[in-house]
């Protein structure tokens, strides 16, 4: 290498180092507003993410003390990322969690008790879902959203929604032809959290639950009935095998999936992809009128140095007008307080009423009594259901095995 090249390389290294040195976050002056980070999967959602950011911007514009900086973290890596950050003494100031992760974070002391910073008694919170914001009788969150599950269908393909599971299977088989699938659900390990959400619908819909509050009931007859019904649809080949949720929801938007049991956020998403789609909703066609629901609390990181500023945002969030605006963003989801949808909104999207009416019969997607161990139990159950789907054993044997592994986990 010539002297010139060495000089150039050294200069390039120095330039690189200088460039890097200029890329850190700058220190803020004392008179500047405090910036808080707010992490949520929803910020990564095409369409809904931008709308939620605009809603947050409404807060930022409303006052000059606090600025909320939205942080979108992909769904699949959300838990691992925020738990690593929080366990390391840092992390976002505000977090929108799935309930299982919320309970785990609160139980581990990673969330700040809410009553210390916010008087929620001034807000008319919806009692049912609000009850899931407590861990050991301490409030650690308020509800950001609650989303029920219902049967969404394409009215160009489905004239009348099925009234029973038998009708549902027959219709799904009849509609599966020419590149169109009768139904779709998650059925792969890499979508474990989402697959478990789908399984809850079948389990609750056949009168089962993974626990009775004190003991695991993973191999109870009702659970096996529900999961066998799930397997019946899989074996009938009416679902697009291998397609992940994002893919089959796009297929639904394109009229290539006729029916889909999914949560209240989905109709808005698929209509955003194809506003010509004729979509309607109905209660799940299962023997028992019960289904899973995603209850999503928002909590304050125990590591946050700005808990009072976080409370300013939460107070703003719970004001009625901001709750109404939030509900418009979240589609067919409920928010923390009872809101009334406008006549125009219900006329434009009649499926909203179907989802709203299901709130009373919705159960949270956690293993009651074993909330802290729900993520580990989820992994066990999904693994065994997949073993049954792949023909390694019957569903009954798979659930016996899951029960045994679950009991070993919880120490029963």
């Amino acid at each position, binding site marked *: *290498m010539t002297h010139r090249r*060495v000089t150039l390389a050294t200069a*390039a*290294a120095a330039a*690189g*180092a200088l*460039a*890097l*040195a200029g*890329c*850190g*976050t700058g220190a803020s002056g004392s008179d500047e507003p405090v910036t808080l*980070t707010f992490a949520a*999967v*929803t910020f*990564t*959602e*095409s*369409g*809904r*993410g931008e709308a939620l950011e605009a809603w947050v911007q409404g807060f930022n514009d409303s006052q000059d003390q606090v600025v909320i*900086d939205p*942080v*979108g*973290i*992909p*769904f*699949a*890596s959300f838990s*691992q*990322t925020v738990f*690593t*950050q929080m*366990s*390391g*003494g*840092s992390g*976002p100031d505000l977090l929108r969690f799935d309930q299982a992760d919320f309970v785990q974070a609160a139980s581990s002391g990673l969330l700040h008790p809410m009553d210390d910073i916010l008087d929620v008694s001034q807000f008319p919170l919806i009692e049912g879902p609000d009850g899931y914001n407590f861990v050991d009788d301490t409030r650690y969150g308020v509800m950001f959203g609650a989303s029920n599950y219902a049967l969404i269908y394409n009215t160009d393909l489905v004239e009348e929604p099925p009234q029973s599971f038998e009708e549902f299977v027959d219709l799904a088989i009849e509609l599966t032809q020419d*590149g169109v699938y009768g139904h779709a659900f998650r059925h792969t390990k890499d979508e474990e959290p*989402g697959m478990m959400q789908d399984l809850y619908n079948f389990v609750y819909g056949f009168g089962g639950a993974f626990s009775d509050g004190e003991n695991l009931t993973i191999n109870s007859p009702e659970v096996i009935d529900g999961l066998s019904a799930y397997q019946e649809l899989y074996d009938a080949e009416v679902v697009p095998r291998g397609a992940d*949720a*994002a*893919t089959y*929801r*796009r*297929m639904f*938007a*394109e009229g*290539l999936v006729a029916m889909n049991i999914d*949560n209240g*956020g*989905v109709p808005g*998403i*698929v209509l955003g*992809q*194809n506003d010509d789609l004729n979509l309607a909703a109905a209660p799940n066609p299962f023997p028992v009128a019960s289904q899973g629901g995603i209850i999503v609390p928002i909590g304050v990181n125990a590591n946050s140095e700005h808990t009072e500023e976080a409370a300013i945002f939460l107070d703003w969030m719970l004001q009625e007008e901001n709750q109404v605006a939030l509900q418009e963003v979240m589609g067919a989801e409920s928010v923390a307080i009872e809101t009334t949808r406008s006549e125009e909104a219900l006329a434009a999207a009649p499926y909203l009423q179907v989802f709203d009416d299901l709130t009373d019969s919705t159960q949270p997607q956690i293993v009651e009594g074993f909330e802290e161990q729900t993520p580990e139990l989820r992994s066990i159950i999904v693994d065994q259901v997949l073993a049954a789907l792949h023909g390694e054993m019957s569903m009954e044997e798979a659930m016996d095995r899951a029960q045994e592994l679950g009991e070993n986990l919880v120490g029963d």
Partner: protein
Amino acid sequence: MPWGRYLRVLAVLAVLGIAVFPLYWMFVTSLTTDRELFTSSPRLFPDFSLTGTYSEALTGPVPRWLLNSFLIAAGTCLVTLALAIPFAYGLSRFRFRGKVALVIGLFVTQMLPESLLVVPLFAIFRTFGLLDSLHGLVLVDTAFVLPIVVFVLKGAIDGIPREIEEAARVDGCRPLGILTRINVPLIAPSLAATAVIAFFSAWNEYVFALTFIFDRGLQPASVGLASFIGELSTPTQTVMAVAVMYTLPAVAFYLIAQRYIVTGMTAGSVKG
């Protein structure tokens, strides 16, 4: 042309096709409508009327993500080479106590997955104020790629006859001069190869970047690309368009470096 040559050309074209087709398909998918994505016989050629996906991506945060990735990758490349060259030289030319343990220690670092180290490293980085900065990512990426680079360069330096260094020393060259003026030019092909390894390693790193960066303005492209994968939906065409943009700079860097690798490999192969 004889049949044998035809067959060889066909074989080369087939291998080239297999290597390039995924990139081509990524490009075609980025310029395909939703409905065509799910047809049983999707279009083989891109629809150039759909280039709006690219314009939308370029007006968003993608250029910033790519710049961040470039700074992280280039920084990792420079720091790694700056540390690895003397490190490899020391391992190759000097005998010292604990040398074997040091080599084993370097190997051990390669056996630990990122996901295992991310929690303790997060705590250490927080203590030293290295979170939410590109410097921090350069450091952690350097730490992970340095052992591989050191081993490659040590092997290259081992192959240089000591007589050349002795001759330089007789001519009055100092130890640092021997390293920079004798050894570095002679291991240029290995330097180019390891630069590519270090650059790609940092360019593609995801776990640390996702965990250590909170500020969206500092996210690299690997994290930005994943941020399109939502809970309820994923805009496939946008993901593919950004993936194309994410791939091209890395390919360009490889092509530039590859010239030096080939030049260096052939240099000195013929006496005369």
